[in-house]
């Protein structure tokens, strides 16, 4: 999130696309409804379903799954055609605009209607609503990302906000709601296969930086790998790890995957779940660390599995990061009960037995405070350095002194600081940055320009135009020594830059001169390292519109995409819709969480949502001869097949099937409840929607495409 949940209170309009915040982030509605009531801010909801959020909206836009990019480019085009773009903002703080404008021109309201199913008049109306009610807060969630062009879709969202001039402003911003309290923190620590913590990447420089932070010899780390080349190569991802075992698609690694550690995740949130199960059965070793035996633990049917019961969040403590980039301290309420251990202890016992405790715990004597301190020391890219355990705890203790509207403390021990010191928090005195890219405040007071990340000058292949990537003269934070754009800081301490100078002198020098350590640049509309340098629509791999596949085809197949061959063009078959005529999309329900291991083990939540179902429009149901409440088979093109209850509702249109993905513990109509350790089966088991979600992965991130597949439905 560039802004915060609280800052949405200042929005003059809100657009949600691929986000069902009422069910996935119910507490955020406190601020959203405040903006609606107090500012008269219209809520626009763009979704394939009439969600519970749509029930609160002023404008509901029903979109065909996977066509988000076309709609947003259409809005951008409509804004530009009417002269509603923020000309000053674009001229001074945006790059690649003319090139982007030319691409957007293709997406007229009529073209958008053909691709998305949204009436041309409604695209025009929404563009006008956004233009007349600025600033707009834009929110997307997994409905925006989980597509094979998810990386283009999310960029289109950002470009729309740039064109409207809504970035770096209170009430505006791109506000991607993250999940429960430490999803943002886990992301920032890069629990990912292509980056070391804090987005440093996998280059030699990144490894050397972290080795200095850990105080561990770089050569020792090199010696832990088979060959050095694997240190710098992206690993397998959560979406495709199973191919590392099964190798149905060719892998680029010297060995198949033999063991899997599954720490705090239900793999039934993984698409292609039938293959995931097959891979789990084939592993030499599967370890599940979770407070509850997960659905995956039940699905795995070989004797290769170990369950390590871990403590819940109430039985341990430590720093966690919220969706608003705020860092909070979680205090322990009770000691771990029922024979479980907290995550730190489980980790420590593993490390001890694996024999590298000396290196692992070099800086970590006091757990968990020293872990936070190590993050403070190393995570400079995103300014995790000012949030010491002492400061975090001070904020928690003085919670009542912070203003709900501004998040700033009024008097008291934290006077002037922003709650949770939202990152970047550059120094021990810095108040945190409540809104990213806000040039109305000095950097020392929480302001920031856009980051200079991609060089000072670029030449665009599509136009041959050369453009300076630094912000225009006169555009900077108050008090900046350089009045205009400037590159990132380096060589203040020779041989280092602001990201690698562990003395943090570089950062302090920049702030002292009123400047941002990372420079002052323009936000890009053109990303020259992506296959689609400017976002364009491409039909979902499994598309219900063969005619559009021809016009907007997918990418060429991609070998070695996170170590596995990934099909695009060879998977996009225009004939598929004949056998699988309905679009399949998935999502959340408010009562359950993720894979549901925890919530389906709660008797009251299970009472409220006791059964897996598929939402079917009554018109489609009646045409298929199905009755409301009957059991149906949902089948996927990959052979996945599940038996679920039909739930007739007009939330979905008559071409779309929706299923929640929280259920597990049943497979192809068969209950696996007996596979749980005795007395530990959840109250509710059900088929996993992800048995049926289709093949398809983002071209950049490899996130699974669970929102725009195809399926067939028949009476069971």
């Amino acid at each position, binding site marked *: 999130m560039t802004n915060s949940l609280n800052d949405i209170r200042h929005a003059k309009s809100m657009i949600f696309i691929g986000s069902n915040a*009422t*069910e996935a982030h*119910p*507490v955020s*509605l*406190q601020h959203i*409804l405040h903006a*609606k*009531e*107090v500012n*008269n*801010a*219209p809520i626009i909801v763009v979704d394939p379903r*009439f969600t*519970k959020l*749509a*029930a*609160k909206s*002023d404008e*509901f836009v029903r979109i065909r799954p996977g066509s988000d990019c076309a709609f947003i480019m259409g809005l951008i085009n409509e804004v530009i055609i009417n002269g509603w773009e923020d000309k000053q903002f674009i001229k001074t703080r945006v790059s690649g605009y003319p090139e982007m404008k030319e691409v957007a021109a293709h997406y007229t309201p009529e073209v958008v209607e053909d691709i998305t199913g949204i009436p041309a*008049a409604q695209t025009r*109306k929404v563009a006008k609503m956004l233009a007349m009610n600025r600033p707009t807060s834009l929110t997307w969630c997994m409905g925006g990302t989980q597509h094979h062009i998810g990386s283009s879709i999310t960029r289109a969202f950002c470009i729309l906000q740039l064109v409207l001039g809504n970035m770096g402003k209170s009430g505006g911003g791109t506000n991607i709601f993250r999940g429960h309290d430490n999803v943002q923190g886990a992301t920032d620590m890069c629990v990912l296969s292509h980056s070391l913590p804090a987005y440093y990447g996998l280059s030699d420089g990144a490894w050397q930086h972290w080795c200095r932070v850990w105080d561990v010899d770089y050569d020792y780390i090199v010696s832990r790998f088979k060959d050095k080349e694997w240190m710098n190569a992206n690993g397998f991802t959560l979406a495709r790890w199973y191919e590392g075992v099964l190798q149905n698609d060719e892998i680029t690694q010297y060995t198949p995957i033999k063991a899997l550690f599954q720490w705090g995740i239900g793999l039934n949130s993984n698409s292609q779940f039938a293959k995931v199960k097959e891979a789990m059965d084939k592993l030499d070793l599967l370890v599940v660390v979770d407070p509850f035996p997960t659905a995956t633990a039940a699905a795995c049917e070989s004797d290769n599995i170990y369950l390590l019961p871990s403590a819940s969040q109430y039985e341990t403590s430590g720093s966690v990061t919220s969706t608003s980039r705020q860092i909070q301290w979680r205090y322990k309420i009770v000691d771990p009960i029922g024979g479980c251990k907290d995550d730190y202890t489980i980790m420590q016992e593993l490390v001890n037995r694996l024999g590298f405790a000396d290196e692992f715990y070099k800086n970590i004597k006091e757990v968990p405070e020293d872990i936070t301190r190590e993050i403070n020391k190393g995570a400079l890219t995103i300014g995790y350095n000012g949030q010491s355990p002492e400061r975090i705890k001070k904020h928690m203790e003085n919670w009542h002194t912070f203003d709900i509207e501004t998040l700033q403390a009024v008097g008291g021990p934290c006077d002037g600081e922003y709650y949770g010191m939202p990152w970047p928090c550059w120094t021990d005195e810095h108040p945190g940055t409540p809104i990213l890219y806000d040039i109305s405040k000095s950097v020392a007071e929480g302001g920031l320009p856009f980051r200079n990340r991609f060089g000072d000058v670029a030449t665009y292949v599509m136009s041959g135009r050369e453009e300076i990537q630094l912000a225009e003269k006169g555009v900077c934070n108050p008090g900046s020594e350089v009045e205009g754009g400037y590159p990132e800081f380096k060589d203040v301490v020779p041989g280092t830059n602001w990201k690698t100078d562990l003395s943090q002198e570089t950062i302090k020098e920049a702030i002292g001169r009123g400047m941002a350590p990372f420079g002052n640049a323009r936000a890009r509309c053109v990303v020259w390292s992506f296959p689609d340098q400017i976002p364009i629509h491409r039909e979902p791999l499994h598309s219900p519109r063969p005619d559009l596949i021809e016009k907007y085809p997918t990418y060429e197949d991609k070998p070695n995409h996170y170590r596995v061959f990934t099909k695009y063009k060879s998977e996009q078959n225009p004939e598929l819709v004949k056998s699988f005529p309905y679009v399949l999309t998935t999502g959340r329900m*408010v*009562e359950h969480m993720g894979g549901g291991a925890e919530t389906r083990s709660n*008797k*009251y*939540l299970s*009472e*409220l949502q006791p059964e897996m179902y598929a939402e079917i429009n009554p018109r489609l149901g009646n045409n298929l001869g199905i009755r409301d409440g009957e059991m149906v088979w949902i089948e996927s093109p990959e052979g996945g097949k599940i038996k679920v209850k039909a739930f007739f*509702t*007009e*939330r979905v249109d008559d071409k779309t099937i929706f299923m929640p993905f929280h259920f597990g513990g049943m497979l192809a109509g068969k209950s696996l409840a007996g596979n749980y350790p005795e007395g530990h089966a959840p109250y509710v088991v059900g088929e996993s929607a992800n048995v049926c979600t289709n093949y398809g992965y983002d071209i950049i991130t490899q996130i699974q495409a669970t929102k725009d597949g195809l399926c067939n439905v028949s009476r069971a």
Partner: protein
Amino acid sequence: MSRMKFLCDIERCIDCGGCVIACKEGNHIPVGVNRRQVLTINQGKPGEKSFSTACMHCSDAPCIAVCPVDALYQREDGIVLVSKKTCIGCGYCFMACPFGAPQFPTGEVFGARGAMDKCTFCAGGPEENHSAEEQKLYGQNRIAEGKVPLCAAMCATKALLAGDGNTVASIYRDRQFKRGSGVNAWGQDKAYQG
């Protein structure tokens, strides 16, 4: 003397069920007994509205009027409570209540009529405040601690208001006043189409 009231602000209720879960977890209510529930009309269609409902603690409570053994009674602050030790489980209150508030333990095909259970406004029952007996029969007594009921305390959007009727009314009046113009105003969609 103030009178205790619930009010569910329908514009704010998002059907999250947090009130139901707070009530059940906090008072250890058996599965199948619903002191509070969230109801939805026009599910999945334009005009969808949800609201949370429980015992309304009526001023002239029909349940009290019909109870043949005077198990139901009203406190001075308006909270309507049942004495489970007096209740004979006849179900007259269930028939009289316009809101379906009285609940009975679930059992076999025809149900098992035990003593009636309903929302206590988190004010316990006739037993001694905070006694083990009160806790067992009625759940928490938050009113005696000066706290609002669990359901309202939990409500994420502050749709569910509970407390002194005058204060509740004043909060709601203030909200309605702010909603009275622009996109939230009644008739806005008809007056300014598109």
